[in-house]
């Protein structure tokens, strides 16, 4: 009896300590999310206030389904996400394996790779924009000197070449984070497994394929979730590097939504786009968690 009341008391303390943080999150994150949905069912053109704010049901969503610019933006986002994450996983795994070894200068390597992760994305984008600038850009100078290019290239005028600095900048900025998540996973692996394998004469490649990768699977999946969701909301990087151009040929969904909202002031339609992005991200997260059976941290199992 005493135990039960004690537990009830504990629960009350627990909930009351968590309450303020939950209230803040509910008020400024969850409530607006509901509002976005409500807004998306209306026509709300801030440029044309005389139209009022009539309820239009799913009209905005029907417009999205027929909007070629939306589908193109979705394609760009998916392309960007898949290409940059694949590169980041491969390079990140190499970096993590490297940082897991003991060698002189390991502390320096760890600090050096962390800096790109910590700086503003806007700054990272500007650094790479400057490197690939057609006039005075060092990439052109180096590539011409090395004989790879015959003449300086205007990178941002063509869709295919405009993606190069975008992907490079993302890989440069985010690989450290990927490497750190994988490194944390590597450090959980029991070293005696490797010793046993070495005694049996297994080489490094065999150890990587049969010990490291299988045991690293949870860490890889968690990284994949974080990065996919990040990739789908990419905004800063492309806003600064290409502005979505040339034309709208590198425009991701977040940038299209931002333009619909704050350039064209189409709040009903922009809100519907926001809801669609939210639904896609949510769906992806569910897919990963359910389909791949990932256990996220937090509760010890």
């Amino acid at each position, binding site marked *: 009896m005493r135990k039960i009341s004690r537990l009830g008391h*504990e*629960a009350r303390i*627990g909930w009351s*300590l*968590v309450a*303020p*943080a*939950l209230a*803040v*999150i509910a008020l*400024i*994150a969850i409530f*607006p*999310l509901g*509002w*976005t949905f409500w*807004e998306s069912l209306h026509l709300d053109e801030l440029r044309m206030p005389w139209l009022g704010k009539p309820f239009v049901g799913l009209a905005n969503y029907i417009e999205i389904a027929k909007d070629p610019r939306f589908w193109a933006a979705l394609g760009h986002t998916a392309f960007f996400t898949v290409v940059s994450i694949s590169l980041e996983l491969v390079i990140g795994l*190499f970096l993590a394996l*490297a940082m897991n070894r003991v060698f002189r200068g390991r502390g320096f390597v760890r600090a*050096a790779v*962390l*800096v*790109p992760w*910590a700086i*503003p994305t*806007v*700054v990272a*984008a*500007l*650094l790479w924009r*400057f*490197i690939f*600038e057609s006039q*005075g850009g*060092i990439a052109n100078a180096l590539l011409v000197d090395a004989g790879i290019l015959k003449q300086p290239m205007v990178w941002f005028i063509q869709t295919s070449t405009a993606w190069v600095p975008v992907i490079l900048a993302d890989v*440069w900025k985010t690989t450290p*984070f990927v490497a*750190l998540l994988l*490194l944390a996973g590597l450090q959980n692996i029991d070293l005696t497994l490797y010793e046993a394998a070495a005694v049996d004469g297994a080489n490094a490649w065999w150890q990587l394929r049969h010990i490291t990768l299988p045991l690293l699977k*949870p860490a890889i999946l*968690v990284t994949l*979730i974080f990065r996919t969701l990040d990739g*789908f*909301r990419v*905004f*800063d990087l492309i*806003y600064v590097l290409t502005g979505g151009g040339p034309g709208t040929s590198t425009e991701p969904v977040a940038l299209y939504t*931002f333009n619909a909202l*704050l350039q064209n002031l189409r*709040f009903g339609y922009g*809100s519907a786009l*926001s*809801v669609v*992005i*939210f639904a896609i991200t*949510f769906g992806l997260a569910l897919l990963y968690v359910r389909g791949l059976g990932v*256990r*996220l*941290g937090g509760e*010890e199992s």
Partner: protein
Amino acid sequence: MKSAATAGVRWGRWTFGAALVVLILFTLFPFYWAIVASLTSDAALFRDPSLWPRHLIFDHYRALFTERDFITPIRNSLVVAGTTTIFCLIVGTLAAYALARIEFRGKAAIMGFILAVTMFPQISIVSPLYLLLRSLHLIDTYPGLIMPYMTFAMPLTVWVLTGSIRQIPKDLEEAAHVDGATRVQSFTKILLPLAVPSLATTGILTFIYCWNEFLFALSFTLGPERQTVPVAIALFRGQYQVPWGEILAAAVVATAPVAAMVLIFQRRIVQGLTAGAVKG
């Protein structure tokens, strides 16, 4: 046979080392180049870019603080990021203590909820926040940025802090409990002093996220008076051409404090980031 194996190992070590060096150069090069270019005159930069600095000049840095008012965005960023961080730490510490130390039903659900909120896309709440801030006349004000910043800063703070406090051993608190200490006493007298490093790390992380934020700052400010550093840099315009020298000088100024913090607190930041994120 044995010598072949040794040669293989040596060869592997060489490739490994070479690849690592290439990666480090790739990582450091943009910084090096930004610093060199920010110290070079625009004329020299566009006529004949050179990897090695020739005449170093500080004109771009001077222009940043005389011709342009770069102090204002720095002040704005400090106020917004600082206030958000302090508020999140105060509220977040209470929540993190409960989540790390008290057993109660619904805890797993709360953790899942908080993690879910850290993952949802910022763009999905830009429209209601804009309408809300507009109706409260908070567009282009400090509170108009601090409030939206809570949406990502609060869950981040609670999540990292909970993971960090969980790693602090419970023994002292349990001993104090046996000696008759109340919960408030064991929290303020025992856990809090032990948690100072956790609080510092979490504070640094939250501050960095706020300092770097772009979308909200771009959406909810109107002009240079309230723009934060990332927005100010992204919108730098020159009269005739892109003022690259000044942009890069500004980039160096905006990055230096963050880079310094990361280099100094590297080990702790890595722990904070990965605590609770990955569990096998």
